[in-house]
């Protein structure tokens, strides 16, 4: 199996995000960048498939210089090589998906994996768009994946509200990973050492033939309103219960 995993580097979810001056972007100073957690499930799944069936795992990521670090981390987990689409431009899901699809098209991959969404903008667009651009089937929010190499088919279980949908499809295909698909591994020391010697090819949008016609523009960003301090009711339980009902009715307007 030749597998492509598409990863995005995002701010660590523990980071406190602040809006930068001009209200169009966030302050990136001091942010700790990590691999999008859903993409980690995709990498892990790719590595497991490779361990079972053999083949190659290639990781692609688009973004500025710092993104190389995310690619290196996946190489330390065991991916074979990386492609870095290097760009400092602020892109939307559409352009990113075009660029990723161009990389995918250049080599024939059996399977394309990514996370169900990136935890920074939560757009959940890139996986499905790449499938459309490549004209291959897709299954999103996948919890379980089986590969039948003999018949070139996949069985994917995807999460629906309150139930599981089982989809059977041929590959090449795009699969997007949901939490629960697997438990991602951490890198081992020998793999960290080997990662140094693995190839990370640098690509540019231009070389891939992509004109960044951005369709989505960020008009403005704002921080969520600060939550007022909690009200704590003390004293006699019966009186407090009455007071609570009154507040829920008059102030919170929920009953």
């Amino acid at each position, binding site marked *: 199996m030749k597998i492509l995993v598409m990863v995005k580097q995002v701010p660590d979810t523990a980071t406190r995000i602040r809006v930068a001056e001009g209200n169009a972007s966030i302050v990136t100073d001091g942010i700790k960048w990590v691999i999008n957690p859903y993409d980690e499930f995709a990498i892990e799944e790719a590595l497991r498939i490779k361990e079972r069936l053999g083949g190659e795992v290639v990781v692609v990521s688009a973004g500025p210089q710092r993104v190389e670090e995310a690619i290196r981390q996946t190489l330390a987990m065991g991916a074979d090589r990386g492609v870095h689409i290097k760009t400092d431009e602020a892109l939307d899901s559409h352009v990113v998906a075009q660029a990723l699809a161009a990389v995918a098209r250049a080599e024939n991959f059996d399977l394309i994996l990514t996370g169900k969404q990136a935890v920074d903008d939560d757009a959940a667009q890139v996986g499905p768009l790449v499938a459309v651009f490549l004209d291959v089937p897709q299954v999103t929010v996948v919890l379980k994946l089986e590969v039948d190499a003999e018949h070139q088919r996949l069985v994917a279980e995807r999460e629906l509200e309150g139930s599981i949908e089982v989809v059977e499809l041929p590959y090449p295909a795009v699969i997007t990973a949901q939490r629960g698909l697997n438990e991602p591994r951490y890198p081992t020391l*020998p793999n960290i050492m080997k990662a140094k010697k693995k190839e990370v090819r640098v690509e540019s949008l231009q070389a891939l033939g992509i004109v960044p016609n951005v369709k989505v523009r960020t008009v403005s960003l704002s921080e969520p309103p600060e939550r007022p301090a909690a009200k704590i009711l003390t004293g006699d339980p019966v009186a407090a219960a009455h007071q609570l009902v009154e507040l829920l009715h008059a102030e919170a307007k929920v009953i």
Partner: protein
Amino acid sequence: MKELLEDLRQGVRDLCATFPATYWRTLDHERQYPAAFVQAMTRAGYLAALIPEEYGGSGLGITEASVILEEVNRAGGNAAACHAQMYTMGTVLRHGSAQQKQWLLPAVAQGELRLQAFGVTEPGAGSDTTHLETTARRKDDGYLIRGQKIFISRVQHSDYLLLLARTTPIAEVTRRSQGLSVFLVNLHEAIGHGLTVAPIDTMMNHETNALFFDDVWVPEQNLIGQEGEGFRYILDGMNAERILIAGECIGDGEFFIEKATRYAKDRVVFDRPIGQNQGVQFPIARAYAQIRAADLMRFESAHRFDQGQSCGEEANLAKLLAADASWEAANVAIQVHGGYGFAADYDIERKFRETRLFQVAPISTNLILAYVAEHVLGLPRSY
């Protein structure tokens, strides 16, 4: 080089993140050995960092190894549970026969063989190592070991013990450091056949024991190097150990400073964060400065070690400065946390107990000072 260290740090952090504070807290409470953590460190190859590639390790230097242990302690764990698996093999690597290296090193690298017990200290010979009284005398193509050891750690989680014993009586040697030999003792064979292990309850979660050798037979091929040269072989590994321990101390210091700083920002007393008071922030800043300074000495000593230069002075200074700095940081952290510093759920008191050990073991602060006074400053020997 810098980049590799960063990757190593990240890798160890990722591994440690799967063993949260609650894991260590529970083990501490139950005085249990962190078996799952040690297994994960072994599987991920970190404990084979120092073993040459030809034997299945990663062939890295003391610099990298000390950073690995630093990150374990920085993450709130305790590297003492597994550090010896990293370096005890060094004695075999440097002084063992080709045959000994061939069977032992690949197995240690794979984690199939645990060589992480090291028996030197005796009730009558602590700081005064050459005074040890455990004897090994020749018998049937081997040696019979007789005597007592104390504070021998990880024995119940090790397959072999590296043992220092006297093969020539003190009366027959010109210097006390002569006539000592190093043996590999197969613990599975020895326990119940002359070797008794008695666990010692200590202030922190540290698996350590008193050992009683009542004519334990060890085959000749388990003697490392030449008979009578053992003390030199053990000394050889001391600098490496000092530098690795310095790394652990620095990790502890970073843990305390990170915890203290966060708490000082969050804890509001008299309507303002306590960290706004100079009386609270200055001690943290000072502890930070001391950790940074010790860190420089750690890297200096590790660099010299890895370049094959003499580093006795630097390794001892690194251990001294780092242990002092981590203890200072521990004290600051517990003070900044007020009463909560004493509550187990804050992890400060546990790490406080753990980092205190470095003032005494594997070598006490006074003995380092005595070394520096004698060997660096040329003052009369005091011990």
